[in-house]
């Protein structure tokens, strides 16, 4: 690990003032569950770490008429245990699936949303986009089945992003000169175009401060296809948020995880279920619609089947129906 300077400011503005505009020069430390392993492998080599867990405003959950606002440094465990979030079973299910108490209690909401990709070529030092050929010709069983035409073939690692996007979450981030940006979480993610670029639009000197969730009363659920009961990444996941009236789906957001370089909003799945009741048949059709245009790599064709099933099961769970599997 490279030697670094450590700062632990108490105010949001002080965090920003300690961040450098040069990519990679400073890093934000929250739970550190992802950052520290990256630093140990010298994949990230900041000269300064800015710990944000001492900033009170980033550790709060508040509720008002517009919805729930959650600080970026709130731990996953706090989210899981907050009764005010019981109306978001999709979020709680994902945190339960993360399984390891260490990750739940140390990991934070902002950190979870900003994790770096798990692509093993990237993690072994072959670069994120630079490993495209290695991925294409090599071990790509866990890689993308959507949006993988370019050099980015990794999958977005965030487990909470699909659920939050489906629920219509907004993120707030701040930067130098008191700049403040609020935008839908979906727009927060991007596919990097050059090797140094990150997977979100956050600039090196910007700080993700809060996530805002509207209390829209959507029926919601998440389904992750998990190899086992441990904290391992799911093979594929899907979160669904539905507005159901008179037994018919009026609005739907269906977002897949672990399938593309960004969380993958499936308009096709949503369109397939809108105007219909949720049942085994319509859920299956939506699942099929979701994967119709999948572009699997040489060794991850099975993920197309898993994605189909994940969509189907997330929809059934959101509607309170059994899905018949594990």
């Amino acid at each position: 690990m490279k030697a670094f300077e450590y700062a632990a400011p108490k105010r949001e503005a002080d965090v920003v003032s300690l961040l450098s505009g040069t990519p990679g020069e400073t890093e934000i430390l929250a739970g550190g569950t992802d950052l520290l392993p990256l630093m140990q492998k010298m994949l990230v080599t900041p000269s300064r770490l800015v710990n944000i867990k001492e900033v009170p405003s980033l550790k709060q959950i508040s509720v008002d008429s517009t919805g729930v606002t959650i600080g970026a440094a709130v731990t996953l465990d706090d989210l899981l245990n907050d009764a005010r979030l019981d109306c978001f079973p999709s979020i709680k299910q994902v945190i339960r699936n993360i399984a390891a108490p260490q990750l739940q209690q140390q990991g934070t909401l902002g950190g979870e949303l900003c994790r770096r990709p798990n692509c093993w070529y990237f993690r072994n030092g072959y670069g994120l986009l630079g490993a495209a050929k290695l991925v294409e010709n090599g071990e790509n069983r866990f890689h993308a089945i959507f949006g993988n035409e370019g050099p980015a073939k990794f999958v977005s690692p965030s487990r909470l992003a699909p659920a939050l996007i489906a629920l219509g979450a907004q993120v707030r981030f701040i930067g130098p000169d008191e700049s403040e940006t609020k935008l839908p979480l979906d727009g927060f993610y991007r596919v990097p175009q050059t090797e140094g670029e990150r997977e979100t639009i956050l600039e090196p000197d910007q700080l993700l401060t809060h996530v805002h969730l509207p209390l829209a009363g959507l029926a919601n659920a998440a389904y992750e296809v998990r190899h086992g009961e441990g904290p391992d990444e799911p093979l594929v996941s899907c979160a669904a948020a539905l507005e159901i009236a008179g037994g018919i789906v009026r609005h739907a957001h269906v977002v897949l995880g672990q399938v593309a370089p960004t969380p993958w909003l499936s308009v096709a799945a949503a369109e397939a279920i809108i105007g219909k009741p949720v049942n085994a048949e319509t859920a299956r059709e939506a699942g099929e619609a979701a994967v119709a245009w999948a572009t699997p790599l040489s060794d991850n064709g099975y993920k197309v089947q898993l994605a189909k099933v994940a969509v189907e099961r997330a929809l059934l769970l959101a509607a309170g129906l059994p899905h018949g599997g594990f």
Partner: protein
Amino acid sequence: MTQTAYDDVAAKLGISSYDVFLRNLPSVSNGKAEVYKAEMEIAAKLIGWKDKWHPHGKGDKNGSIVTGLGMAIHTWGGGGHTSSCLVKIHPDGGVETSLGSQDIGTGTKTAIAQVVAETFGLPVSGVKVNIGSSKFPASGPSGGSTTIGGVCESNRRASLDALDKIFGLVAGKLGVPATQLVAKDGRIGVAGGGDKSLSWKEACSLLGMMPLEVKGEFVRGTKDPKLGAGSLLSNQQVAGVQMAEVAVDVATGVVKMAKFVAVQDIGLVVNRKLAASQIYGSVIMGIAYSLFEERIMDAQTGSMLNCEIADYKLPRLGDVGEIVVEFYEPESEYSRGVIGLGEPPVISPGAAISNAVANALGVRVPILPMTPKRVVEALAKGAKA
């Protein structure tokens, strides 16, 4: 391979793999057909084979979940390795044994203490066991399930020789023949009672100023009876039968362990709790390599891609299901003496679980570990065939 082939034959014939194994025992069991047969019966009862078995791929489907049963058998040597030790009895009654062995978490140290303590009629707390240093008399490395046989041999031999010497001293003091003496409950006295006896401490005080040192030796494969040829204390070659019950989600390819039964003979069980613990551990390792563990090498870079704990898959407690361990120990096995145990029960799980998955699905997942990917691929291939 052979074990899954039996199961494939059963699938082809549409009969229970239990029957195929049973009928073929005489040709594959190293003369232990009767032991395997008895163990199969015990295992079948414990897992409910007769009630739960269905022809391959023909079980009830509950939603997208199917279940299956599979079995496999194994054998292993487990004979003791060459081992020497030095047993010291101090004039104050202290007892210690020293040997260049090691406890890799299996309880070797406890087993040694048990053997020495039992020989001297002392509690286990009355024996100090010194291991883990090359300065002690040479004993073998831990490998091939050879440790328990080796260390039990050398320590029992040294302890018996030492006890003979103590008996000689006590016999003189009490005025009784040494052949009539027994060491029990911390005292040395005449067998069958009588009021003539000494406490262990009093007996040891007869040693005078210097401790008694006795070397124990066992040489694997020796022709010399003094070094263990023809010893009845230890033995080798075990059988063992295992059965697995799994549930598979055919939509996602996820395999879950429902129950696993391991029936094992190991001759004389030195310590029931530690021995059972060895089998639980072996079964969990077996489940791990059957369903999770895999070293993923990249042919392009030559590097291992999943060498981080975050990428290397292991089962968690919730993944191992119910494990039932049963010893097969009729007198005929018990009287064979001590036999090593660590490895035998880790042989069968791969085949037993693979067979259970094949029984559930009706197709064979040909490679371990049986990941969701491989299960989904095998099902897709099976559907095309």
